[in-house]
């Protein structure tokens, strides 16, 4: 919850007595808190677009199932009335549970909603009504938004809103979230119900399930009996402990606990009722096939789908590289031309000690430059591309197409999403592994992500090889990296205990992305990338600078010699450059040059003067595979804890060094 400005403002004007009398007379407007409306719906029903319409924030909506990961609370105002809108992750049923999160009913009830706004697909009620019924069974007031009404109508499906409202005994609104049709009205209705419910909070424990749902009488009786026992203070031992704890804490009402405990018996009934009601309220002309339907079939078909997938993937990478390179040029030229000279003078004036000022400049000047030249252009561009693909609904199709391939690695096809993201930057890719269901899958995917060269290491591979050995060698290096990653992935899948969960994925219809939503989403993710990566980048540069400027780098170099010279067949300077690449990936090459010039003199300005092509190749491949950078390790630790983070990093390091050593022997440099 962010703020309660108008409420607290109005409070200051009334005396405690006035306040007390106003609450007794008008229980609907409890002044001490805002009514809470929970937004519930199946994944991909346009819930987030719905919120965006109300709040004007477009960031976290995606045309991919299950992309709203956390619970978002926002204060909204509709028709002069404020309320807290809680956007819950899309869910198929009350018992849905994704890795690391509590079950959906727990998320919902912990938000302490006064009313539920259930968003359903107007064209597919049979699939969407069971969740609505489940919400109603919790004893919460509900309002239904029959969303995507335009898509339904394009398919020749109409809806008798009045009749549905009668059946559900709840207000039903026809809405088109994308265009804002009916959105305000639906929310206003939900706020109205929420305010009404607040006055009589928990008094409804006394009423039975109202209105009586059309469940078999025996089932209603048995659920009612459990609720009655709970209300009487009994705590039946056959009820799940978390439900009993919820009842004790007051978050779960007795009737809610009783219906949740009976979920397995109620759920089949809900689906039967949903199918019957859907048939009753849907008016169908002949069902029309839209262009999106046909296209949707084509992109998952074996013959055309695969080539399209290859084209789309390469296209996305090409676009990212082209636009990213261009942006990088512009930004780094601007920095070196406009900011860098002034900054250098400033730092040197403020800090008169040369060692310290140079160290600080490593961080402020070259550290920030690398953010501008590598981090920002490639990551931002990639986010825009991926957001557009997400919103179009195509990303889900790629998950289906690549499923079989990823199965071999113990992953479902969904893993394509974080891996694509990893080619931009590993940090957001680690977060993107949340689209996977189990911890095992997330760890396996994170390992592959760590082995995937990000834009910074790709830049090193290209810059180290293309000028000296040509384009073909660079492509070969990427090929070797991919091969190693696949072999390592196969190995990790065999070693890690457990099994992969089979893919069952709802495919969203293809839609034209909303530009504003795409940009807002990319920007939102980009912002969190910048705040995570910048401090790490600055800190890392500071450490490298201090080591270099104080000469402390020399002993480390000697320490690493057995690995760099013995195992990889590389000169000592290359060893230290690789080691420090943990702090800043793209520095591997720059650092190598700087250190080489310091060691061998000006002649070392060209890599080829002290590295033979075989060594360059080994250096490039190892850089591509090597330990994730500190920012990635931090992200891993944040998601899985330090033990797992170090395990993944260690496995990556071992893979990189092992394959590097093997490669060095194959090309004959060690």
């Amino acid at each position, binding site marked *: 919850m962010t703020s309660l400005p108008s409420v607290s403002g109005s409070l200051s004007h009334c005396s405690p007595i006035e306040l007390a009398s106003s609450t007794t007379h008008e229980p609907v407007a409890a002044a001490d808190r805002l009514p809470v409306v929970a937004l519930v719906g199946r994944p991909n029903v346009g819930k987030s677009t719905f919120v965006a319409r109300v709040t004007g924030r477009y960031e976290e909506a995606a045309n991919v199932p299950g992309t709203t990961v956390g619970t978002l609370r926002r204060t909204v105002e509709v028709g002069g009335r404020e309320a807290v809108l809680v956007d819950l992750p899309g869910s198929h049923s009350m018992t849905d549970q994704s890795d690391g999160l509590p079950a959906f009913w727990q998320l919902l009830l912990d938000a302490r909603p006064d009313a539920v706004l259930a968003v359903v697909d107007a064209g597919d009620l049979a699939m969407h009504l069971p969740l609505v019924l489940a919400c109603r069974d919790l004893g919460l007031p509900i309002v239904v938004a029959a969303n995507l009404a335009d898509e339904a109508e394009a398919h020749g499906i109409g809806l008798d809103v009045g009749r549905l409202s009668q059946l559900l005994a709840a207000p039903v609104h026809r809405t088109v979230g994308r265009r804002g049709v009916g959105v305000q009205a639906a929310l206003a209705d939900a706020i109205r119900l929420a305010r009404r419910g607040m006055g009589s909070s928990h008094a409804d424990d006394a009423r039975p399930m109202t209105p009586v749902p059309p469940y078999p009488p025996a089932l209603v009786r048995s659920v009612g009996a459990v609720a009655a026992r709970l209300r009487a203070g009994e705590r039946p031992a056959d009820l799940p402990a978390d439900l009993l704890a919820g009842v004790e804490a007051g978050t779960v009402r007795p009737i809610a606990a009783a219906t949740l405990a009976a979920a397995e018996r109620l759920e089949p009934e809900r689906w039967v009722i949903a199918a019957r009601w859907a048939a009753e309220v849907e008016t169908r002309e002949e069902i029309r096939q839209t262009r999106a339907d046909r296209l949707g079939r084509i992109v998952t078909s074996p013959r055309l789908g695969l080539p399209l997938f290859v084209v789309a993937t390469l296209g996305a990478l090409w676009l990212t590289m082209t636009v990213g390179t261009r942006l990088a040029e512009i930004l780094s030229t601007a920095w070196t031309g406009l900011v860098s000279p002034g900054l250098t003078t400033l730092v040197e004036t403020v800090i008169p000690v040369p060692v310290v000022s140079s160290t600080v400049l490593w961080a402020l000047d070259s550290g920030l430059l690398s953010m501008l030249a590598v981090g920002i252009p490639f990551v931002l561009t990639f986010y825009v591309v991926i957001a557009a693909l997400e919103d179009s609904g195509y990303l889900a199709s790629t998950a*289906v197409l690549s*499923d*079989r*391939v990823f199965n071999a690695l113990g992953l479902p096809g969904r893993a394509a999403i974080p891996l694509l993201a990893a080619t931009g930057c590993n940090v957001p890719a680690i977060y993107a592994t949340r689209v996977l269901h189990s911890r095992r899958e997330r760890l396996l995917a994170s390992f592959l992500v760590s082995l995937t060269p990000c834009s910074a290491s790709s830049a090193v591979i290209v810059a180290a090889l293309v000028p000296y050995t040509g384009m073909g060698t660079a492509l070969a290096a990427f090929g070797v990296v991919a091969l190693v990653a696949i072999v390592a992935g196969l190995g990790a899948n065999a070693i890690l205990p457990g099994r992969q969960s*089979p893919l069952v994925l*709802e*495919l969203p219809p293809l839609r034209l992305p909303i530009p504003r939503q795409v940009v807002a989403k990319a920007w939102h993710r980009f912002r969190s990338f910048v705040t995570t990566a910048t401090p790490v980048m600055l800190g890392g540069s500071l450490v490298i600078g201090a080591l270099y400027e104080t000469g402390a780098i020399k002993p480390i170099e000697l320490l690493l010699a057995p690995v760099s010279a013995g195992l990889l067949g590389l000169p000592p300077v290359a060893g230290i450059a690789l080691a420090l690449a943990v702090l800043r990936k793209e520095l591997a090459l720059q650092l190598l040059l700087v250190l080489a010039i310091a060691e061998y003199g000006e002649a070392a300005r060209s890599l080829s003067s002290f590295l033979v092509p075989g060594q360059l190749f080994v250096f490039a491949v190892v850089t591509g595979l090597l330990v994730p950078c500190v920012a990635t390790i931090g992200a891993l630790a944040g998601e899985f804890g330090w033990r797992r983070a170090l395990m993944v990093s260690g496995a990556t390091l071992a893979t990189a060094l092992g394959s590097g050593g093997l490669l060095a022997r194959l090309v004959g440099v060690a």
Partner: protein
Amino acid sequence: MRKSESATQEWTLATIPVGQPVVVVDVGSERSDLLLVHGVRPGARLVVETEAPFGGPRVVRLGRSRVAVDRRLATGVRVTPVIES
């Protein structure tokens, strides 16, 4: 124990031809929860629309939604064909 006990020809979601409308008889026991929440339930009418390459998932149409189902999981779903009138 994986083998089907009945000797008669039995159709599953993995074997029905693309385009053949069927009704689900039984969803099997392995991870049936995943199927149930997507509406693949006994009595549901569906049709296989396409299938992903290399023995990948089969894409099933149920009413207006499309659901991709892992091939191995599909072998556990017993179905019976619908004869169009």
